[in-house]
């Protein structure tokens, strides 16, 4: 970095868009004042599998304000999936209403368009649909084991010899861990306003990845990509559910075409259970072998999950087990069962969030068996080489995370024996877990526009990036301030329009590294060009305003692009962390609470500690949600989600959380990228549930292997062998 800049990279400044958010002026998808707008409401199937035998739309069409009712009978023909078991990704098409087949309960089977929201909602209930129900819907996880398939080439992995490793072990832990179906549930309901103009469509939509969204929409409707524009100035949370284009977007685009007016669709909270993705249920079987001194000899991680009947999404739960610990012998498998449920899709830290619950619980169980401090057991099995890819880590400060966290937390005060640390009716426990999260970095473009206003430079950054709460506006502004040498107040950031230069969008923890390096490249290019024009040496410091003046320019624009280096490709790039938790469990009622948490993260250069802290505590909160109550249940006789509202699906509330200390390790990972940035958005959620579950074990002597850990489960759980009822 060239200059010390009080508002540049690394400064804990307030969010640059903060005033808009606290005054209600930030504009989310359904809030663009599009004139002449009408409202559409999707209709959902009420069977899990079968065919629609008749649809009667007469009454709905006659209802006040109704402009159109679209079903598979009159829907326009869209591009559809050409083969079964199609592997979906973030730019996959989103066809809807293309046949009379029903694949799961809650699938869209129609849409009603009306003048007002109330009219559309009501008329949607007036459409009468009859079904022929198939008698073999696949709705029971337990009954589909025989149909499990091998989803992809890299679904199986092994190194060394598991059998040999287990034979060498003094102790073996073999346990199965279950994580339920979970839902992302960003606070902003998925929404879109679609507007056609001369054969071109604009979608104001809550999407995380705009370039991919334009691809998905254009492929779905078979129109050129240049005729699709997606605007997402502010996105009210995503957590993965807004990565891809979901079918409500298609419904809106289709309906807008049909009625010749802009159409708004706001997905209901109940529809967000069935139509905007989910984290699938995972059954993870761990087998760990270790010697009495704590040396790991074997580690296997077998995952069974589900996908939809026709599409494939696989969450790589076993990823953490491939690279986190120094086990010479390891095996990872992933299997999927087709079920009549909607297709799962990435939810915050797909793989790590769930996989780490299994791995870090099993590690804790082994430490208990070995009578070893679980912290030391983890440290003993640290590795500086990625044994999976057989290459070095760009940087790995896991041991530092664990030790520094232990010191801050007061780990030494932990009682080895469960049920011995008590206060009144409370049993108190400490838990620890290690975290790792892949830290990708992707090709990113950016544009900078400079304007000389009186004697100062005002800069505008443009990228099709999104800010889903992650702080993109702020960190891009700080990056521009840093590399242009101007205060952040003179930088304006424009995001969320697919007409801007292409970025990878927000997802997979690549946002900060990719966006900022892209912005950096544009700014560096601009300065370089202005210097080159005047033959000023690159290392000579000249204020930007002066440079523009010397170039006799009042306006200047420049683009830039950043992408991974060959060094990046030669290394494994991960962020690392450690979680510590103190929980209090009521000895009788099964109610428990988090008393405090400590999180340590080694995630490269921290661009803004204030927003980075937000990312971490946000991850911790969602991780706490996994442990406390988050769970979507499938009704065993009908196949619908019986948890269908925010009153049934309990995400954490304010009182569920407690004080959190976050420690960042000072690190700049220059192999990762020029600015030394690694991802932090998903690190925070990783292994949180395990740290809490491990703390609950330390408190109660009960090992909770199925999430969430509700009072009813805690009441019924037995004590682990070796635990004394005190």
């Amino acid at each position, binding site marked *: 970095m060239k200059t010390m800049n009080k508002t540049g990279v690394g400064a804990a400044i307030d969010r640059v868009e903060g005033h808009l958010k606290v005054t209600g002026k930030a504009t989310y998808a359904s809030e663009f004042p599009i004139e002449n707008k009408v409202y559409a409401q999707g209709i959902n199937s009420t069977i899990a599998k079968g065919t629609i035998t008749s649809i009667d739309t007469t009454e709905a069409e006659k209802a006040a304000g109704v402009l159109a009712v679209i079903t598979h009978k009159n829907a326009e023909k869209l591009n559809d999936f050409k083969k079964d078991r199609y592997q979906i990704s973030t730019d996959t098409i989103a066809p809807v209403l293309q046949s009379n087949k029903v694949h799961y309960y809650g699938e869209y089977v129609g849409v009603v368009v009306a003048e007002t929201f109330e009219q559309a*909602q*009501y008329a949607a209930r007036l459409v009468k649909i009859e079904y022929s129900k198939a008698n073999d819907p696949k709705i029971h996880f337990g009954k589909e084991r025989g149909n499990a398939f091998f989803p992809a080439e890299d679904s199986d992995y092994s190194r060394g010899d598991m059998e040999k490793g287990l034979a060498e072990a003094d102790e073996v832990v073999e346990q199965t861990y279950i994580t339920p179906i979970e839902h992302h549930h960003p606070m902003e309901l998925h929404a879109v306003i679609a507007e056609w103009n001369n054969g071109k469509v604009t979608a104001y939509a809550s999407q995380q990845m705009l370039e991919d969204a334009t691809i998905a929409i254009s492929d779905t409707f078979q129109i050129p990509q240049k005729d699709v524009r997606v605007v997402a100035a502010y996105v009210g949370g995503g957590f993965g559910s807004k990565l891809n284009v979901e079918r409500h977007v298609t419904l809106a685009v289709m309906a807008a075409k049909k009625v010749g007016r802009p159409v708004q669709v706001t997905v209901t909270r109940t529809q967000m259970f069935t139509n905007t993705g989910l984290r699938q249920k995972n059954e993870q079987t761990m087998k760990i072998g270790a010697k009495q001194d704590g040396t790991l000899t074997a580690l296997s991680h077998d995952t069974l999950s589900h996908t939809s009947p026709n599409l494939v999404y696989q969450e790589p739960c076993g990823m953490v087990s491939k690279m986190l610990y120094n086990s010479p012998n390891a095996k990872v498998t992933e299997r999927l069962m087709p079920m009549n449920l909607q297709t799962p899709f990435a939810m915050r830290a797909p793989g790590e969030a769930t996989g780490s619950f299994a791995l870090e619980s099993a590690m804790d169980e082994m430490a208990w068996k070995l009578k070893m401090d679980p912290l030391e057991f983890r440290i003993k099995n640290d590795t500086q080489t990625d044994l999976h890819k057989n290459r070095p880590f760009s940087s790995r400060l896991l041991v530092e995370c664990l030790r520094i966290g232990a010191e801050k937390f007061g780990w030494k005060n932990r009682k080895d024996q469960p049920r011995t640390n008590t206060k009144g009716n409370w049993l108190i426990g400490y838990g620890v877990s290690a975290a790792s999260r892949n830290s990708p970095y992707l090709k990113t473009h950016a544009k900078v526009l400079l304007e000389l206003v009186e004697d100062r430079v005002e800069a505008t950054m443009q990228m099709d990036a999104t800010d889903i709460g992650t702080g993109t506006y702020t960190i891009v502004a700080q990056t521009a301030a840093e590399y242009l040498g101007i205060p952040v107040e003179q930088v304006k950031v424009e995001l969320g329009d697919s007409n801007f230069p292409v970025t990878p969008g927000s997802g997979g923890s690549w946002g900060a590294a990719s966006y900022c390096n892209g912005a950096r490249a544009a700014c560096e290019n601009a300065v370089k060009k202005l210097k080159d024009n005047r033959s000023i040496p690159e290392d000579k410091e000249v204020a930007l305003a002066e440079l523009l003046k010397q170039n006799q320019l009042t306006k200047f624009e420049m683009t830039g692009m950043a992408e991974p280096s060959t060094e990046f490709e030669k290394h494994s790039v991960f962020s690392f962390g450690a979680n510590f938790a103190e929980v209090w469990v009521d000895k*009788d009622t099964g109610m428990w609470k988090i008393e405090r948490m400590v999180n340590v993260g080694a995630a490269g250069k921290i661009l803004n500690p204030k927003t980075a802290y937000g990312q971490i505590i946000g991850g911790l909160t969602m991780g706490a949600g996994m442990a406390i*109550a988050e769970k979507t249940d499938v009704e065993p006789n009908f196949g619908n989600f019986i948890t269908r509202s925010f009153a049934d699906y309990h995400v954490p509330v304010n009182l569920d959380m407690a004080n959190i200390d976050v420690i960042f390790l000072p690190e700049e990972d220059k192999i990762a990228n020029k600015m030394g940035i690694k991802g932090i958005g998903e690190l925070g959620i990783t292994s949180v549930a395990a740290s809490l579950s491990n703390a609950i074990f330390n408190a109660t002597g009960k090992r909770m292997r199925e999430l969430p850990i509700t009072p009813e489960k805690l009441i019924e759980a037995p004590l682990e062998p070796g635990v004394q009822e005190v």
Partner: protein
Amino acid sequence: MRPFTYTNAKNTQEALQQTTATTHYLAGGTNLVDLMKEDVERPDQLVDVNNLEFNKIEKNQSGGWSLGAMLNNSDTANHPDIRKNYPLLSMAMLSAATAQIRNMATNGGNLMQRTRCPYFFETSMPCNKREPGSGCGAIDGMNAVHAIFGYSKECIATHPSDMCVALAAMGAEVEVQKPDGSSRRIPFSEFHRLPGDRPEKDTNLEKGELITQIHLSTPQFSDNYYYLKIRERSSYAFALISVAAGLSIQNGMISRVGLAMGGVAHKPWKLSEAEEFLKGKKATTENFEKAAELAMKDAKPFEKNKYKVEMGTKAVVRALQQAINRTA
């Protein structure tokens, strides 16, 4: 939501006169409007009763206080006379929902709350309460939050209110006005009903009757009270099981006791046998445990709510202990 006409009643007479067979009275709307959006409630007329005169708390002739049906839950729970004289009621009310909802929800409306059974909410599922004759989806389905007492084969839903559990423990009378202008008083224990073969009926109110007041007798349990609410998260969740416990201690003996449980039956579940057992006994954990056993002895859980028996037992003991610990 289905179309309906909206009328704002200026006084009780006007409200009562306007009622028809498919009218609903609209008070706070926190439950009714939600259920209308879900298409579970389908009135074709709403008569807004928010502006009626029954919006205060006043002393009554029996030495107690009367709660206006149209007064909201926040103002009721926070009223100095209620906090001082019926803190068990305040505590139960404050455990419910959130500040925003308590600011809207009324006392009358709280009594009229409908079950949170998910089969009741989802119109594509069978539910005898919502659609008589369609069956009970929960009985062989997801019944983790369902009843363990007093259910029928037609319905195993529970009543969701916290306020009502405290009222059941304390005892009260509900005053209602009939469309003809006359009024009657219903003992609180007879206000809600068990499902039997008419699960669509939650209460013994007759068509068109309007709740106007809830009468409380002399102050109760102002020293020894506790409302224990066990739920899946620390706040903003309905109870898995709740217990309202109130005790009066004289000369070291329990002279008066109020005990009721929520989340276990179609109505707030008064634990009469346990109450009887405790009267005249010492407030010891041993006695509390015996009372809890009596309270739970007739519990008959389903596949997924077996935990409620043990949880209920522990909850009764804990609520009584907490009530005692207030002054201990």
